[in-house]
């Protein structure tokens, strides 16, 4: 009778433990009342070869976990920021189309430069630099003069046309988010 009871308790214990092993592997810590606390899980595993074996098998399965493409987050954030202005930005920027992940359906990159703030910034620098040369920058001009003229002209551009490089959208955005957006640039 006692053996029967013991066996039944152990079976229930194993089932509950096995139900919770995936949470351990995915780094989710139990918080609900119905969940098995970490300490109880460890105590059971120390005593139960079958559940330890199950954990090893689940670890093997976990190693096959697929990851999303590296640029997925950057593209989503760029699209979302492009269509949902921050508090400081004006409304109404058109939403770019989906940038498909299938290479054969990919839009030409040149047509989308403006949708990517970092790429747009690079184009802006290039355009302003070319403008300086066209407006009288001379070979003899010193670096300080050129830089001062560049700063003045680029400030004017940012102020006049918020769309250029999406400047207002990036106000107050952290370095991490900017890095995420830059990560979305195709090499």
């Amino acid at each position, binding site marked *: 009778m006692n053996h029967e009871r013991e066996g039944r308790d152990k079976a229930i214990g194993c089932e509950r433990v096995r*139900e919770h092993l995936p949470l351990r592997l995915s780094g989710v810590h139990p918080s609900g009342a119905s969940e098995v606390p970490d300490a109880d899980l460890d105590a059971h595993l120390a005593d139960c070869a079958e559940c330890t074996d199950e954990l090893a098998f689940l670890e093997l399965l976990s190693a096959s976990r697929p990851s999303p*493409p590296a640029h*997925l987050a950057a593209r*989503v954030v760029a699209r979302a920021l492009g269509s949902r202005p921050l508090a400081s930005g004006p409304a109404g920027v058109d*939403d770019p189309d*989906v*940038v498909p992940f*299938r290479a054969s359906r990919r839009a030409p990159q040149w047509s989308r430069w403006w949708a990517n703030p970092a790429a747009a910034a690079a184009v802006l620098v290039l355009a302003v630099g070319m403008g300086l040369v066209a407006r009288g920058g001379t070979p003899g001009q010193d670096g300080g003069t050129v830089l001062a003229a560049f700063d003045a002209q680029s400030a004017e551009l940012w102020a006049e046309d918020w769309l250029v490089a999406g400047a207002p959208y990036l106000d107050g955005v952290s370095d991490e988010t900017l890095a995420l957006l830059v990560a979305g640039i195709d090499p």
Partner: protein
Amino acid sequence: MTLTSRFPEDDDRILVAGARDGDADALAELVQRHQGVLFRFLLARTGDEDQAADLAQDALVKALRSLPQFRGDSSFRTWLLAIARNEMLGRHRKEGRRKEQGLETGMEVADDRPAPGQALETQGEVDRVRRLMDRLPEKQRLSVWLRLYDGLSFREVAEATDSTEGAARVNYFHGIRKLREWADESRT
């Protein structure tokens, strides 16, 4: 890259509120936090990485745009998975119509490509396991993936797979049992 410094790890409500108010960092963190489970959910259902990534992109953007409509009755993750499921069904309906009209759909058949980024020495074993996973019936595969890869509760698994909590639990255990049997068979 992790963006967790400003935000509590297990609570999406602050992120949702921030993103709704136009906080770009909160929005980026929400995307970072949930892109993985969304991509895997769609991959488990479509069997195609490109298609899963396209659908995940659309579903995430749609969810972020619809944040003002998110009432918080369910978790943000559950809500996102429901949007992804609708997005996928909508895409399938469109593709079905195109097929009926005799047009090229552009959809690809699932393949056995290995998951990228795995350590070389375990790649063979990982490939083998992935192929075994692909043999599971869809609901069992989804239950195993969502529970094992992303730690969803059985209630969340049930909502994502349009089944009951009990069925999600049974599907998970049956899936794991079959995988173990197949793994043992392939070793002998």
